[in-house]
């Protein structure tokens, strides 16, 4: 008996090692297929063990992952973005806010699709004037593209980052919300490891996702198990007819929105990136094959824009250039 247990433990250790090499989650190991010859005397104790999964995640079982539907990202994530957790979604510049918000809304739409009967609202918290800076959520566009109706959206405009964090903490523990988006600009000092851990823990207990949208931010240590860095990608072209796979692309048109998503932090610590495309019709992500453009010189052009300086936790943070312009002072170009 003890020997059998030892043998099994050895097998598990080996599988864990294989998983590590393969870059899969060690926690999500398939139980060994039952073979009475390999472990004599153990067979009757674990019937139907062939397709069972071991998910050891602080005792929470069940469908706790939100698959993106793109294997290039789902596999390194170990199946998808964790549902009962905080997930960081980064955008490098403020002007990428549309792409970042689009990706987050796509995730939200996928999460809402998992529970169609659910009618709990989505709370979108903006810290310190992010809505003025990066634009308000525009429900006609969001409804058309992501299928989230206006009556399921709640907007919270916090004046300061402390207020936003307070609201987020109060709301994160509340099961009455389907999911939460917390949008923060830059790298505020208040949003440190402790604050994110509090948010993450509350989201875990409430059992639903909290997407932390960080616009114009650099990666900092946080408690979020998954960090995705999102940047815009040139979209494909519009398909004229669904039935014709590639013949009927409308040249020069702007197709479904595309984003480049890079996993910079996950449980497996496997870096991965992929270009995703949101399909309005399927309401799902799909991988976008690169280089489907013909001529026209659309490829990767150099980024000529002025890049905002990151404000960091230093005695004298560098002035942000061009990142925050929705203020009273008159910009130079408007003179």
């Amino acid at each position: 008996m003890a020997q059998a247990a030892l043998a099994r433990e050895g097998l598990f250790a080996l599988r864990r090692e294989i998983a590590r090499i393969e870059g899969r989650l060690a926690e999500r190991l398939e139980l060994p297929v039952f073979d009475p010859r390999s472990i004599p005397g153990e067979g009757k104790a674990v019937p139907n063990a062939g397709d069972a999964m071991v998910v050891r995640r602080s005792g929470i079982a069940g469908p706790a992952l939100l698959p993106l539907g793109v294997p290039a990202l789902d596999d390194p994530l170990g199946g998808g973005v964790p549902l009962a957790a905080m997930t960081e979604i980064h955008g490098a510049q403020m002007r990428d806010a549309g792409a970042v918000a689009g990706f987050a809304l796509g995730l939200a739409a996928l999460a809402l699709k998992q529970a169609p009967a659910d009618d709990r609202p989505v709370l979108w918290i903006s810290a310190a004037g992010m809505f003025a800076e990066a634009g308000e959520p525009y429900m006609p566009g969001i409804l058309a593209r992501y299928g989230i109706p206006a009556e399921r959206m709640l907007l919270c405009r916090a004046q300061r980052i402390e207020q936003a964090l307070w609201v987020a903490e109060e709301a994160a523990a509340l099961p009455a919300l389907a999911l939460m988006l917390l949008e923060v600009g830059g790298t505020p000092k208040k949003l440190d490891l402790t604050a994110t851990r509090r948010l993450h823990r509350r989201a875990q207990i409430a059992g639903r996702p909290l997407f932390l949208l960080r616009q114009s931010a650099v990666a900092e240590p946080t408690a979020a198990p998954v960090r995705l860095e999102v940047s815009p990608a040139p979209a494909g072209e519009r398909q004229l007819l669904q039935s014709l796979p590639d013949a009927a692309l409308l040249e020069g048109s702007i197709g479904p929105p595309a984003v480049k998503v890079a996993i910079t932090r996950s449980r497996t610590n496997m870096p991965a990136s992929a270009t995703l495309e949101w399909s309005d019709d399927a309401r799902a992500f799909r991988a976008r094959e690169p280089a489907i453009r013909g001529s026209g010189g659309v490829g990767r052009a150099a980024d000529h824009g002025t890049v905002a300086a990151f404000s960091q936790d230093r005695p004298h943070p560098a002035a942000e250039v061009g990142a925050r312009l929705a203020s009273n002072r008159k910009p130079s170009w408007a003179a």
Partner: protein
Amino acid sequence: MRPPLLVSHRDGQAQRILAIDERAGALGLKPGLGVADARAMHSCLDVVEADPVADRRCLESLADWCDRYTPLTALDGDDGLFLDITGCTHLFGGEEAMLRDVLARLRRQGFDTRGAVASTVGAAWAAARFFPDGGLVEPGGEARLIGPLPLAALRIEPAICLRLEGVGLRKIGDIMKAPRAPLARRFGAALLVRLDQALGAVEEAVSPRLPVADLSVERILAEPISLVDDIEKLSAALARVLSTDLERRGEGARRLQLSLFRLDGGVQRLEVGASQPLRDPDFVARLFHEKLVAVGEAIDPGYGFELVRLSVLGTAPLAEEQADFAGGSERSVADLALLADRLRARLGDAILEQPVMVASHLPERAQRSEPFSVPIPAARDVENGHMQSSRSNPAERPVRLLPRPEPVDVAAAEVPEGPPASFRWRRALHRVMRAEGPERIAPEWWRQPAKAESRDYFRVEDEAGRRYWLYREGFYGTASAPRWYMHGLGA
């Protein structure tokens, strides 16, 4: 010793005395005298300019303070207060004791006050103003009391007063004896109404300054409190008392007010609203906790609060509901309502909003923000059907819309009515790789006549794949150059 005090006001070209203190009165000065004359008579005078706004504020704060006696307080002119003490006197040991208490407390605050208690508003007014020591007017004794008083005690216009005196009617008693019909014909019905009101023949209601609370509980404290924690504890205790009253009425509170009466006469009020009828004392206490945190330092206890009152300003029916074991959706809606109330109590009413889609083709009007309410409103506009079903709406809209369109520098468009080749937005240059458009959106001429121009919207993708929603206002080749604006992101 302080010099005699005069309050002056400008009357035409002259600066005249409006009010004087006792010492100035002892010198023989009178209101109405010119300030220059008074200075000529007495060199050492302290003259201050009258400030009617501050006087008004002072009177209002006194009215607030009188709220401790009765919720029905009203201002009377510039220097009087009405207190409707019907049904309140037993709490203060009877009418006479109550009057003494009011006057003594006001005197301690430094006010020289005269007061009277009577069955009618008119009689009390006359007694308080025309008898040096005011006092009680017995029910039925109004006629005997006001009979010998001059006509001004009737609260009638000075012009009518003068005309009455012109025909020899100098006292109220004269009018009471005179035949009514000729009086009404010559001097107007208002005179007789005032007389009847003073005598109690016609009802006169005091219209209170503040809305009267449906329910209120208060606690008078022997030892004044000043700590926020104590106020919170007390509000929870008061809410507990209140909840039994609300339960008996089958109601819940929608608006609650906590009034804190300071030892030195100041009154501070905190108000919270509830999205759903509320009865649970813990919830009420939590709302006031958020409010107290939000108010923070603005609460000034001074020497402490001696009376704390919790009033219900608005109620709504709240039926007792039996909870199911699963703890269904009602619970979650209630949680959400409580969260919304707490956010609003601490951060203001605009903190939580609900976007509502409106039937308008103008992008900025197609969405409106409304304060969050329970139940969450469904889509408002029936005519807005095409907006509700996303598939039948061919025009693509951005995911984010800037609250105000931001001007964009466009050097040139490739073709006059076409998209820009490049543009500068927020100091960064964007090269347009692909564009779709224009989508022409005309202004709503039935709402904003003739001023607005129609816009041509373009969906634009730059070299990195960022998607923008730009528009051009005006046309090339016209007198004014067209202007370009950034309106949305993620188009």
